[in-house]
């Protein structure tokens, strides 16, 4: 998904956190499409193209009246389905007076939007992140704007060996980069899994401070990425040697779900939604505060790195051959699945 490629359009993307969308009109661009979102009086989230059909004034800068938007320029009035229900000075409403409405689903604390062909929008296909809306877990979250293309964030998250070098002193320790990975691609389900299990590792401050563990740890990182948008890192830390029980329970370990939604804004910018859900110290405000600050610092380290890479890619263009090694096995798989999704959305060649 670089500047010369289209987005996988027939896919669900996270447009916002549910908590961001209320009665006020809310603007966000997804896959180069400016959207206006709001919550109706019935509590339902709707998304329309953020352009009045008349002179393209942004509806997000207009007035909300009941469950309609009245354009702030000339008063064209739209309902939540995008139909124009009133125009100024005349009774006839032109047949073409409507703005595009996008399928929307609110699920797992996210507002998901379907950018492609509405006929193909299947809510059952939205990947799940149930921990984010489950009382048994406590979640801290944020969203950072990234001035870099989606593929750069995807590469970053699919290869966690960078934690050792970019995030040392936060989440990185020497063992991350030193430990081999297992990679699995489920072609039909559209999932890439990358696992790195460290049997005896230093405990980085992110986990030492939040769990209270002081010695060396067993640290498991199990990534599940469902391209193009939802990334889950199942993180398990425990004192060295502590394994799950034979019955599958795991009472002596600490579990964190690090959930990212990678949503393209434009060809060269991305919405970087990040969540850290934990099953321990759930009511401890100090732990929540620490994890929020620590993880935001880590995300901003990525943002600085990826923004620099984006500038380099734009400057160097295609006059560059990258090099991939074993640590890139999962990222290469994720790139291929996204390329397949882009291809699948292309119109079939004429016969």
């Amino acid at each position, binding site marked *: 998904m670089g500047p010369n490629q289209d987005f996988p359009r027939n896919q669900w993307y996270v447009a916002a956190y549910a908590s961001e969308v209320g009665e006020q009109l809310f603007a966000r661009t997804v896959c180069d499409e400016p959207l206006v979102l709001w919550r109706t009086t019935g509590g339902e989230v709707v998304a329309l193209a953020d352009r009045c059909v008349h002179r393209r004034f942004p509806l997000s800068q207009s007035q909300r009246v009941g469950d309609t938007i009245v354009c702030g320029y000339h008063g064209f009035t739209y309902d939540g389905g995008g139909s124009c229900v009133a125009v100024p000075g005349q009774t006839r409403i032109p047949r073409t007076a409507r703005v595009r409405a996008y399928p929307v689903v609110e699920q797992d604390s996210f507002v998901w939007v379907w950018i492609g062909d509405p006929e193909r929008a299947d809510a059952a296909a939205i990947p799940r992140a149930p921990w984010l809306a489950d009382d048994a877990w406590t979640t801290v979250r944020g969203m950072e704007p990234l001035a870099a293309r989606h593929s750069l964030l995807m590469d970053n998250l699919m290869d966690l060996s960078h934690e050792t070098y970019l995030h040392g002193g936060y989440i990185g320790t020497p063992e991350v980069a030193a430990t081999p990975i*297992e990679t*699995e691609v489920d072609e*039909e389900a559209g999932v890439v899994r990358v696992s790195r299990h460290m049997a005896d590792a230093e405990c980085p401050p992110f986990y030492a401070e939040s769990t209270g563990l002081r010695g060396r740890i067993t640290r498991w990182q199990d990534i599940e990425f469902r391209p193009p948008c939802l990334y889950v890192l199942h993180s398990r830390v425990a004192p060295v040697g502590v394994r799950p029980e034979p019955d599958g329970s795991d009472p002596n370990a600490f579990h964190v779900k690090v959930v990212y939604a990678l949503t393209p804004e434009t060809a060269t910018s991305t919405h970087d939604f990040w969540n850290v859900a934990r099953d321990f110290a759930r009511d401890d405000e100090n732990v929540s505060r620490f994890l929020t600050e620590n993880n935001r610092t880590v995300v901003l380290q990525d943002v600085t790195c990826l923004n620099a890479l984006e500038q380099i890619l734009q400057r160097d263009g295609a006059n560059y051959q990258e090099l991939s090694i*074993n640590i890139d096995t999962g990222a*290469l798989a994720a790139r291929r699945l996204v390329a397949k999704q882009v291809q699948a959305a292309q119109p079939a060649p004429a016969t």
Partner: protein
Amino acid sequence: MSGVVYRVHWQPGSDTLLGTCHCGAEHLAEDPIELWTWLLAHPAGHEPFPAADEPSLEVGVVR
């Protein structure tokens, strides 16, 4: 889980990757691009024994 699953196992203590196709064929490589090229070529070259002389994929260009 569907029936089309590819697996890549990085053999500990080595630089070697062992790829397993959904058909059960296996292949050793020290380059993930070479290994993915072999896996995705299924069924070409997926004889029951590891092949030694598969061509490498050109190193890709970031887009």
